[in-house]
């Protein structure tokens, strides 16, 4: 187990505004962990899974993934599936963030192994709260190291 302060937050979000709002609210919750932003699925997967596609290069690190489902280049569910099927990152917690409220889509994400599903509400107060709570959640959960089986 590692200290949660060393947890790296990987944020996959194509909308810069959303990314900025998420970051602001995470910081507001007092979470000061490093945030690595990606705006496309391809670049995020390249970082996460590495050249060999296993994600084993992150062994020893602890990653938490924030994933927007609607990315321009590929479907968020495909990214989720690839993360959850990789040897190195299958245990990394994935928080799905999206404007979608489609029940089938939500169910599919849980089926694929997503840990938390948050819809981006139109009401900013709620959105902020949700993100802040997520920040609190980050500060208390034990994130397993990558590469563990």
């Amino acid at each position: 187990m590692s200290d949660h302060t060393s947890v790296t937050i990987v944020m996959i979000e194509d909308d810069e505004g959303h990314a900025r709002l998420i970051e602001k609210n995470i910081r507001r919750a007092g979470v000061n962990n490093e945030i690595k932003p990606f705006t496309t699925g391809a670049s995020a997967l390249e970082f996460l899974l590495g050249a060999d596609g296993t994600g084993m290069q992150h062994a020893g690190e602890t990653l938490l993934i924030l994933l927007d489902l609607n990315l321009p280049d590929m479907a968020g569910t495909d990214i989720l599936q690839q993360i959850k099927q990789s040897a190195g990152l299958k245990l990394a917690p994935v928080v799905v963030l999206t404007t979608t409220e489609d029940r089938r889509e939500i169910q599919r994400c849980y089926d694929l192994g997503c840990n938390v599903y948050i819809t981006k509400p139109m009401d900013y107060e709620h959105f902020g709260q949700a993100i802040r709570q997520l920040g609190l959640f980050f500060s208390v959960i034990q994130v397993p190291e990558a590469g563990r089986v």
Partner: protein
Amino acid sequence: MVYRAVSITLPIIRSRIPIQVALLVAGFAVLATMSLTSLWLAHESDRASEYVAHTLEVNATIVTYQGALRRAESGERGFLLTGEAAYLNDYAIGQRRLGELQVDLERLIADNPQQQAKLQDVLPLVRQKMEKLATTIALKQQGRNDEAIAITKSGAGLDLMNRILAQILAMLNDERSLLHERQEYADRTNLLLFAVNFAGGLIITILALASISLIRKRSHQLAQAHAELEQANRGLEERVAERTADLREANDEIQRFAFIVSHDLRSPLVNIMGFTSELEALENEIFSDAEITPEQREMQRKEVAEALGFIKTSIGKMDRLIKAILNLSRAGRREFHPQPVSLDSLIKSLTGDVTHRLQEIGGQIDLGPIPDIVSDRLALEQIFSNLIDNAIKYRRDDRPVQIKIDSEERGNFIIVRVADNGRGIEKRDYERIFELFRRAGAQDRPGEGIGLAHVRALVRRLGGSIRVDSIFGQGTTFAVILPKQWIAVA
């Protein structure tokens, strides 16, 4: 969606009814004629029989008449020989019977002038004979036997009798020939009756057979019509299933469209709401009376600028999305007009438009022969111009562009293939690229994710479909399948 006219041709049963009725009427006519003829013939036969009976009666009466004359004569002879009065009784009976029978005979042959004439010839002779007989009897009774015998011996009586008998024989012969004639007539009538009945029966049998064959033919036709109707029904069911599948697909597409639009419109709204709230929070800070350092002021300025920047960008994005949706909706409402289109020259002119660009970046387009079709010209232009643009846009920078356009005819459809040697599309994105506002692969080229969604909508409206096949990193082929003869359906 593809609309096709459903046409069911119901077999028309040509009117057999008049023939059937005609057969029936003919049958009844034959039957009626036969009955009437039979009735008449039976009546004739009856009459012939009556005539025969009459002739026989006449015959019998003539013979009896002759017998009565004989009896009267033999009575006279007996009396002459014996003088016994008993013989006179026979004579008297014969004489009386002669009178009676003469009346009968006259009545019976009233219809036959020849016989009447013959009878008139006989009657004076019979009267003479009877007078002679009366004379001899009177002589005998007076005791003048010799005189009486002398009269008898004279032979005049015998001669008279022979003449009478000859005359009567003639009458009998007449009657016999008449009998023969009438019997022949009766036989002929009976034969005719039989013939008529037989012929009538034969005709009715033929009519009945014709009717039966007609009915069988008709029921066969009915069965055939029934079978065809059943087949048409089955076809209809298939059409319904096909249409249901089309509608389901269209419905799924509308749902996906609604989902995408709601998500994509919501995304900038989240930004607008979020950064407006951030501005609200900043407002209190900015307008408070608390002293702040220039660094803090600078920080506030930056944050306000950032929030306003995001809000502006989001509004611009929403505006673009709404415009794109409006354009699509307008394109969807445009009326399509089928017309003969030389697809070959249409695509040639489209490739001509990009020649200059291709020369700059290096590349070429190969064109195979493409047949003419009947379709909407503008829609075809939009479809192929989008596909050619994409083929150039998503090229690989490390090699010259190679685009190949060719076609293939298959039944009532033609398949036009646009193949490039560009970056390719991953299999999992084959559907995604056709979705509105969605793009695939590296996001290094400008675009809104509208082109292919528009192309697919157009192809479908033209009654066709579009398929994509690609090897990632090597190239992509779009196959547009279009009906050769598109018919606009209102």
